């Protein structure tokens, strides 16, 4: 069932165009790398703040409100460009370990972010301007940093299998 979906994906016009063109894949891949750089860089700023390492003079809530729109915009670009790259050779990518592991870590990073926003972040006005940050915030920031480093590493690894 899923195999058929992957085959259908590969047969869509954009997927065919990408796999037949000599410059579309490198072009979209460049966009993908740029978008990921902004996603990871902006998230790292927040993570380091949650870990109490950087930007201590900025209230956490304010920093997150300022950075998050950039993160989401870049993420949308990364997702779209990534989906296009994936479609060009869907069956092959799906069959590789680094791709599956990357998707798993990406999901975990998303869940970690959801958990943070559903719990600790609700009281950010109470602790966001005070040092040190609560232990739960540190754990959340550390997890996020580790997961995203894993996502980038595995992403690069996809090109080697």
């Amino acid at each position, binding site marked *: 069932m899923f195999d058929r979906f992957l085959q259908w994906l590969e047969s869509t016009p954009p997927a065919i165009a990408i796999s037949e063109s000599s410059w579309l894949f*490198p072009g979209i*891949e*460049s966009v993908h*790398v*740029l978008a*990921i*750089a*902004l*996603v*990871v*860089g*902006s998230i*790292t*700023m927040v993570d380091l703040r949650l870990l109490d390492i950087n*930007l201590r003079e900025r209230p956490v809530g304010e920093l997150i409100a*300022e950075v998050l729109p950039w993160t989401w915009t870049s993420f949308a670009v990364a997702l779209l460009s990534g989906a296009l790259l994936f479609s060009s050779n869907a069956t092959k990518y799906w069959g590789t370990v680094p791709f599956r592991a990357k998707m798993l870590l990406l999901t975990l990073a998303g869940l970690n972010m959801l958990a943070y926003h559903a719990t600790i972040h609700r009281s950010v006005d109470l602790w966001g301007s005070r040092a040190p940050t609560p232990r739960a915030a540190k754990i959340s920031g550390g997890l996020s940093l580790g997961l995203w*480093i894993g996502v*980038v*590493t595995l992403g*690069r*690894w996809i*090109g*080697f299998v």
Partner: protein
Amino acid sequence: MLDDFIHWLGATPVSQLIQKVFWIIPTVQAVHILAISVVLSSMAMFDLRLLGLAGKRSSIASLSRRFMPWLWGALIVLAASGSILIVGEPKRALGNLSFLLKMCMLAAAIIVTLGFQAVLKRDLEGGSADLAPAHGILAKITGLLSLTLWVGIAVAGRLIAYTG
């Protein structure tokens, strides 16, 4: 001559080691990309501020103090990881048009950054609270140039894998 150097470098024990151990190149490339994300994000924030498009609550001087250490720190990591990649695959990078273009843009980006930092420093030492208002146009040109160059550097870097 370049071919001789590439051949010699590829035959060195260090290069042989990097070529033989399968995980070194992907791992170092991952480190390289992580450092690029630090550079691109820091410079995007700083350049957009120079262009007046974001972060206007903070002064140019304070953002400069915040982001420049990250830029230089990440560039050291990039130079180190990039060197390992070149030693491991000298033929892939040296003599590659994208690589050459990337290095030219990198040199230009560093010159633009150092030049702007020198102007900012002189303004601050001259008693100005931030970049002197007279240098507003310079800030915009710097922001645009810098942003374009850093994006170009990242793109050219990825294209090394595809060009010869």
